[in-house]
């Protein structure tokens, strides 16, 4: 290509996916192998010393997985990525270079319920803390921060509440106190929102959702912008001080803007072991080729459904940032101008019972715990995904008893609406 920047659709098809150098295969091959031979002992030593790039073992790097990493980095406008076995694994991998026992993150209280559980409970086993604050007022992050704070964590578009956060304002506060802003961009995808353009430093994904797009493969991704200066303070010794586990090599000095991603592979994946399988990376690469087309259709279908439901007699309210009446419409226009995504929450007048009845009577919709499939999906969070949360956490996360979450697929919009209408009619009886 010329020296001009390729467009998003071109990157979605091509980035990381050049023809295979060994065979000329045009589609990225599935390198289903655990290990890679060394040329000689010297080559092996150079690889283990991180002095030359190359493949050693698929827990660290694998050609199919790296193709996916490069594609995600290109789509987000980042410098590099580390793939993980799942979105949850990606969150741990993103924090691993930053955190030591006793450190903490400040996270939005409007997050996917699974993330709140992971951060609020399991992180404690590493002696990592998590404080949750209402992101509607960005200053809440500054108020909660301490000298143990190592990162802020938000979702660009929160699951399931349809909450859009003022990312640029939160990024500014993070940089004031010298920590990175980590943004979970799963619900928006880089097609709708590119957090690095709004000051974020690290992006995490559950690639399981819209990136893979067909409900085939579990996976996660950590993308680094390469712009955060790890040497600016003493908060991040894993990157800015000599690493005893690597013969006192200093990652930030040796690898510059690449250091966070090198650490993610050389230490994060090496020791945590949550690598993505080549087959899942292949399926996700296939999915991403059509991401722009699917996201357009997801968004236009979701807007039609949201408009229809907001005038429906059985519906109390609809939370979808694409509706002009929505609390987050203005922020949505700023951060997600191409569309407010596929996911919305709907408050049913019939409460908990109506929610349970609805998920049991839909025909086209699938009742399951996922979002971002090409198929329309529905779940009643209070009786499923968010079951472990307290009443207070449920309402903060936008998942009260009367709430159902819809992930609108790419079917014919009239068929989606007809299925909801028949199910709502029966749920209301």
């Amino acid at each position, binding site marked *: *290509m010329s*020296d001009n920047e*390729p467009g998003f659709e*071109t*990157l979605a098809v*091509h*980035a*990381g996916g*050049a*023809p*295979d*150098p*060994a065979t*000329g295969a*045009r589609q990225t091959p599935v390198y289903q192998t655990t290990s890679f031979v060394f040329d000689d002992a010297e080559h092996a030593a*150079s690889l283990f*010393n*991180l*002095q*030359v*790039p*190359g*493949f050693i073992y698929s827990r660290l*790097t694998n*050609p199919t*997985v*790296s*193709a996916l*990493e*490069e594609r995600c*980095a*290109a789509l987000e406008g*980042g*410098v*590099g*990525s*580390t*793939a993980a076995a799942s979105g949850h694994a990606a969150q741990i991998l993103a924090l691993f270079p930053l955190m030591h026992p006793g450190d903490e993150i400040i996270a939005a209280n409007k997050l996917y319920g699974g993330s709140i559980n992971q951060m609020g409970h399991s992180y404690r086993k590493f002696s990592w803390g998590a404080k949750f604050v209402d992101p509607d007022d960005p200053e809440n992050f500054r108020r909660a921060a301490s000298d143990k704070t190592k990162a802020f964590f938000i979702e660009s578009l929160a699951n399931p509440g349809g909450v859009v956060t003022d990312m640029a304002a939160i990024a500014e506060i993070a940089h004031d106190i010298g920590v990175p802003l980590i943004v979970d961009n799963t619900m928006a995808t880089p097609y709708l929102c590119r957090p690095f353009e709004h000051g974020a430093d690290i992006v995490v994904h559950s690639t399981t959702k819209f990136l893979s797009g067909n409900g085939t493969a579990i996976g996660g991704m950590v993308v680094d912008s390469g712009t955060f200066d790890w040497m600016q303070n003493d908060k991040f010794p894993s990157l800015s001080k000599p690493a005893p586990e*690597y*013969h*006192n*090599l200093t990652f930030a*000095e*040796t690898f*510059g*803007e*690449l250091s966070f*991603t*090198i650490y*993610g*592979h050389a230490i994060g994946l090496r020791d945590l072991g949550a690598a993505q399988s080549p087959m899942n990376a292949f399926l996700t690469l296939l999915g991403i080729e059509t991401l722009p087309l699917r996201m357009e259709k997801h968004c236009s279908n979701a807007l039609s459904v949201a408009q229809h439901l907001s005038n429906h007699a059985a519906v109390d309210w609809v939370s979808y940032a694409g509706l002009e009446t929505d609390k987050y419409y203005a922020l949505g226009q700023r951060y997600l101008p191409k569309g407010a995504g596929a996911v919305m929450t709907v408050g049913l007048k019939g409460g908990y019972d109506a929610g349970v009845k609805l998920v049991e009577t839909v025909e086209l919709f699938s009742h399951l715990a996922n979002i971002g499939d090409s198929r329309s999906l529905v779940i009643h969070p209070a009786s499923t995904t968010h079951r472990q949360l307290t009443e207070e956490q449920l309402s903060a996360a936008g998942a009260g008893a009367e709430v159902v979450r819809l992930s609108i697929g790419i079917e014919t919009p009239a068929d989606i609406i007809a299925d909801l209408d028949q199910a709502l009619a029966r749920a209301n009886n």
Partner: protein
Amino acid sequence: MEALKYEDSYVKSILADVKTIAMVGASTNWNRPSYFAMKYLQTKGYRVIPVNPVVAGQELLGEAVWSSLDEIDEPIDMVDIFRNAKAAGPITDAAIEIGAKVVWMQFGVINHEAAARAEAAGLRVVMDRCPKVEYARLNGELSWNGFNSKVISSKRRKL
């Protein structure tokens, strides 16, 4: 500060034209960045001549270490500077003096005045980059570690 931007075609032509590199600030310590770069560039077929007065006379990766650029008794195509921005000034002048064709300053090393002098003397200049990283990026090797090479092509890459 605005990030420096170099077209891929410009960097590619430098890496293709250059054969012999004098590396100023080369370290004999195996886990210093310059050692990584020197070792890598050697495996790609470049002759790398280390310059470092502190360890002059010693051997580094099979090459004798020189104490300054003007002592080296063979033609140098490119001077790669592993020193800070201030030191890069006189090193650039020495590079012009010995007839080098390219001055390359490493990550974080930016000296616009020195660059202007070099360009006025007909040299090509790259600042705030690493030739190892650029070589790996442009040849697809950086992609192996999940990095964004920014190269889009449907041509088969050479192995």
